[in-house]
């Protein structure tokens, strides 16, 4: 009985380890809030959160957030082009929005590509994952921290 139960215990531990290899566990999430000091434009705080200190460079993180802020500023930029788009839309009784992609939507696609790129190159190798702010209603940049599994390092 004892022998059987010890065998089962060993088998179970092996099972758990293989599952962990396939799906890394989420350790915690960090939320970068919006920075409203310049008004209601979309801008995120560049303050480096303490939970990421062991995972990534402060400079790298600030560069990512600053690039995101610049992209959102480009989307919301008030200039000749955006006014022209607005006037044209008004003249066509706003039906033009049904068939044309707005400038903001084009920049959002650019932001999605940038975040995917950053995740693949910089954040995933460090066990982090950036979530596109549009999926959180442009309220926060959610950074998921995965548990640091270094299997085989101690053996």
């Amino acid at each position, binding site marked *: 009985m004892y022998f059987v139960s010890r*065998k089962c215990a*060993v088998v179970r531990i092996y099972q758990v380890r293989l*599952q962990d290899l396939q799906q890394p566990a989420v350790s915690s999430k960090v939320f970068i809030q919006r920075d409203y000091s310049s008004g209601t434009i979309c801008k995120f705080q560049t303050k480096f959160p303490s939970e990421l200190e062991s995972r990534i460079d402060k400079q790298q993180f600030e560069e990512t957030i600053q690039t995101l802020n610049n992209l959102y500023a480009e989307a919301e930029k008030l200039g000749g082009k955006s006014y022209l788009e607005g*006037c044209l839309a008004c003249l066509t009784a*706003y039906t033009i929005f049904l068939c044309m992609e707005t400038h903001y939507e084009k920049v959002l696609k650019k932001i999605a590509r940038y975040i995917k790129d950053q995740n693949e190159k910089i954040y995933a190798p460090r066990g982090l994952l950036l979530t596109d702010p549009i999926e959180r209603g442009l309220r926060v940049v959610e950074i998921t921290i995965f548990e640091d599994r270094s299997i085989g390092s101690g053996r």
Partner: protein
Amino acid sequence: MKNCEYQQIDPRALSVSPSSAQNHLEKKEQRPRRKWEVFPGKNRFFCDGRIMLARQSGVLPLTLGLIVVTCGLFFAFDCPFLVEHLTIFIPVIGGMLFVFVVISLLRTSFTDPGILPRATPDEAADIEKQIDTSGSSTYRPPPRTKEILINQQVVKLKYCFTCKMFRPPRTSHCSLCDNCVERFDHHCPWVGNCVGKRNYRFFYSFIISLSFLTSFIFGCVITHITLRKYSHSTKRHRYHSVLVICFFSIWSILGLSGFHTYLVASNLTTNEDIKGSWSSKRGAEESGNPYSYNSIITNCCVTLCGPMPPSLIDRRGFLSPDEAIPAASASEIELPLFAAKNDTHMVG
């Protein structure tokens, strides 16, 4: 260490077993659900999430009915006479205005006004943690507020208990729709929807074009009556109904247009104007509002011709399997937390 004998387990057998449980769950869900089907606010969705309205459509059918009936009577009875005696352009202009008014009205009613999606459970927990650590825990302060500086002006951000987040500046929670709406202006029963950041320009073009339409119809009907005075007068009661509708609506619509023109020029919302948020004690209007660009033209351009913000609620997106299932467990977790807070409040 003793050599423990154990069976060699095929890793592929292990990888199949957790996913086979998932397949079983997925089979229970017949089709992938869209996000609008689980939307927490009190909105109604049509055409598979493409069109949205508030729960009570208010008097939108009445608004549409009044516009269509008045214009119908105008085209049927006034236009033939005026085309004959004046010019063909009268029904053409009338027709264009009518089409513009109806399209603007429908765009205002059916567009997402700028609803902010509610905070995810992780976000809400993170904010709760920050509030508890920063404030004192001996008593629960009544409204949770956060003060920030916008253009060197102190602005208070309030915590929304329904949406579980600090409302961004100029955002307000509409109790009729049960949503936080960005740049909330007001909930308009005439259009059956909130008026916010995304549909304010449609609302403004609706009331401006409606002012032109009612003034135009009023003018044409007066011209018609004046011209007919010198010939035999018949069907007088029909002119009177159109005249009466136009007369009463003109004052209210022109007044509303004027009011909203003032709001657009000073980059204010109806909500802020009514509450007197920026009516500064110094008496100078421009310096009160931190969002104003201090130039009428810039304010108008920004509000009406600025870039069109995207919808944040993604109505037609598909729910991921992990989003659909924990919805039930999240609500279970909330209840004991709320009960615990109630207990402390009663004790304190």
